[in-house]
């Protein structure tokens, strides 16, 4: 697989797994407007995932569906952050904040990159990511600077997720950590939350070593396609 196809696969897997996790909130979010918001964000993520996976599979003659439904966990290249269980609403918002700010920075950089197809997809997706990041930041501030209970839960979410953010900046994304940190620290500050110390940095998603949470997610996401190969509607 070429470097470009490998990168497209990684970007597509981040977006696909994030979309699947966000879609789990559909009909279960704390309020109607938020239910619609999370489903809309999932749809944007799925749209980006389809474009990236279509591109990633072209050289090997594999479709977006082949890649989404017919790979096992060890073949997925998403970061661990996006596959983690949704937890409570604060964990979901924390995951979205960390991911969306990263995706926006990554897409801004790719939009200026040498590969025309990646640049076009990234240029399209970055405005959507900016909207997701704004939404997650609003909720982070509302929960962090809210009641004692919402503050406690938002801080717990940020603390639990922080170790998983390091993996996002592996490889050629290393330069993005500085602008990412600046923006995240500003939001955490406004939310009266404490920025956790850097320490444990779990890794492995980019080479296919995942948590068992991904296996369970894939079982649900892939079961229909695998039970009825090639089915369409």
């Amino acid at each position: 697989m070429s470097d470009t196809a490998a990168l497209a696969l990684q970007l597509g897997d981040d977006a696909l797994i994030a979309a699947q996790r966000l879609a789990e909130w559909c009909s279960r979010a704390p309020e109607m407007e938020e239910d619609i918001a999370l489903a809309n964000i999932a749809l944007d993520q799925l749209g980006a995932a389809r474009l990236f996976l279509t591109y990633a599979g072209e050289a090997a003659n594999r479709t977006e569906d082949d890649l989404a439904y017919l790979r096992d966990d060890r073949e997925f290249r998403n970061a661990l952050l996006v596959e983690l269980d949704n937890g409570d609403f604060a964990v979901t918002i924390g995951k979205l904040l960390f991911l969306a700010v990263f995706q926006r920075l990554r897409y801004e950089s790719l939009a200026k990159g040498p590969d025309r197809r990646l640049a076009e997809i990234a240029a399209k997706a970055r405005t959507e990511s900016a909207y997701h990041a704004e939404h997650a930041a609003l909720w982070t501030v509302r929960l962090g600077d809210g009641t004692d209970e919402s503050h406690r839960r938002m801080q717990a979410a940020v603390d639990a997720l922080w170790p998983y953010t390091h993996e996002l900046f592996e490889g050629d994304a290393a330069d993005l950590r500085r602008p990412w940190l600046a923006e995240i620290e500003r939001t955490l500050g406004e939310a009266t939350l404490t920025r956790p110390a850097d320490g444990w940095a779990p890794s492995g998603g980019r080479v296919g070593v995942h948590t068992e949470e991904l296996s369970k997610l894939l079982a649900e996401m892939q079961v229909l396609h695998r039970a009825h190969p090639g089915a369409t509607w």
Partner: protein
Amino acid sequence: MVSARATAAAVRDPELPVVTIEELGILRDVTERDGRVTVTITPTYSGCPAMDVIRADITAALHADGYRDVEVATSLAEPWTTDWITPAGQAKLQRAGIAPPAKKTVLTLTVRCPRCGSPDTQELSRFGATACKALWRCRACREPFERVKAI
């Protein structure tokens, strides 16, 4: 015979049926070569689920007008923004009770109620029934309304 361009341009958006795909700014190009019509469209949002319906509607409209060989291509560059909605499209959205997006400026402009025109409005949710809309309400006439998100 109606030109292929005119036929494609008249296709309506399935989620905002008061406007055509041309007025919404998602029709990019129509070319005819050796009897084949190629229509190029662009999505409003990466995951817009209406794209498949729009493709099918364009093909059906051209077939009905006698164009047998039709191809619908998708292009992402330049990415669509709400600034591409034509003035006629903006006016039609307004008349249908959907507040059109503001032009992208450094200032955030007041959103006027599309029903009574009052500037005393409030955003209820940054997301709405489709990927391209947000939910608002008017404090003056008390009516809820949708607004095309500005991107």
